[in-house]
């Protein structure tokens, strides 16, 4: 029920803070009363016809990069295991 769906503003909000958004290809009119700083091009979280938050895309990209490092580390570990030596030791040896 507390689902909020990302949408992109395709116009500037009008004088009563209504705006057209694109929600996964569907156009809808929503209110920006709760996110008064939202402007055309911004991504927002939409719940029950209201933008409740401007999505911090930069933050999202950074956190994803951080999370990807878990996967990368695991892949490296696997390679290291296959090669029969410990990746951490190798990194230490090769460090300048």
């Amino acid at each position, binding site marked *: *029920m*507390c*689902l*909020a769906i*990302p949408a*992109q503003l395709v116009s500037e909000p009008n004088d009563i803070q209504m705006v057209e958004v694109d929600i996964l290809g569907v156009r809808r009119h*929503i*209110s920006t*009363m*709760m*996110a*008064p700083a939202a402007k055309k091009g911004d*991504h927002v*979280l939409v*719940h*029950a*016809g*209201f933008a*409740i*938050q401007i*999505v*911090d*895309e930069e*933050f*999202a*990209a950074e*956190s*994803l990069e951080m*999370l*990807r*490092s*878990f*996967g*990368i*580390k*695991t892949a490296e570990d696997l390679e290291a295991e296959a090669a029969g030596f410990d990746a951490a030791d190798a990194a230490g040896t090769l460090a300048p």
Partner: protein
Amino acid sequence: MSDILDGFRDPEVARGLVDAIHEVAKQPCTLMEVCGTHTMAIAKNGLRGLMPDTIKLLSGPGCPVCVTANADIDLAIEMARQPGVTLATFGDMMKVPGSYSSLSAEKADGRDVRVVYSPLDSLSLAEREPDRHVVFLGVGFETTAPTVALTIREAARRGLPNWSALSLHKTVPGALRALVNDPEVRVTGFILPGHVSTIIGAQPYEFLASEYGIPSVITGFEPVDVLQGVWMLATQLAEGRAEVEIAYGRGVNVEGNPTAVAAIEEAFEPCDSEWRGIGVIPGTGLALRPGFAGYDARVRMPVTPPEPREIKGCQCGDVLRGVVLPFECKLFGRGCTPEHPVGPCMVSSEGSCAAYYRYTDYGKE
């Protein structure tokens, strides 16, 4: 943006996190989510099966329609039965049974019950049909409450004479306090609801850490988000820390959304509220402030529903407290299925019984 969202569904990223969780979760713990959207995300993506034996994932009272008391549903139904009344609400409310009926059964019987996407749509309805009185039934936690608060303000601005709101809204932090005070409930960490926290921020949960020493993490809804939340909780437990952390920074600020909180405070004041399975929790309801009495359905339409009754054999109350798992209920999969639901946790698309029934083999014969 869709690239970023795909990243939060990437199996590769998920696998790395699952490994990290197995690495860190050495001590047994019980983690509870309190959001129907988390219930569904965990079940749908099979995340329970990816957990190490040390981690037990439980669903708490996170589905707003499931925790709505029979007496409150009966009240809404009684209002819908009044001549000249149109009752408008979110689709989630329609099939949820009260003591004797549901809104969808009432609609089938000829009452004027309508589903709207946004509470603002109910204002347009009232303007289009000035001979009818439109009651908007507002249900939901802090995510939804400000949308109804702003709709009440908008009704007042337009001076709409034939519109009012029935507020069954509830607030989350007080329910968490009731849960941790319940000796039957044993939770070592909370997966906190992402979009409730978009509105209220992190501060209202601080008591979990400072008074009870329970770690909590505000968590998003993609598979990778949920795994990140679990990993951060397991890490706090392993390091002996108890803090409120945010694993959903793209959607939640520490301070929440002050505009939305101000809207809630303008339209509503805290009141006692009955939660199914838990009972009355002081201060966890939202009643319209006296200044908005002209838009309060309880004032405009005083009705007395029949005495409420509980459904025999239904353990939704225990399921909502995480004391009983859905398949441990005697009715699960036998008397109670999504096709023929008995309790609200099987009716609601976000109910934990519906999630278990749809996505797992537990309790099926």
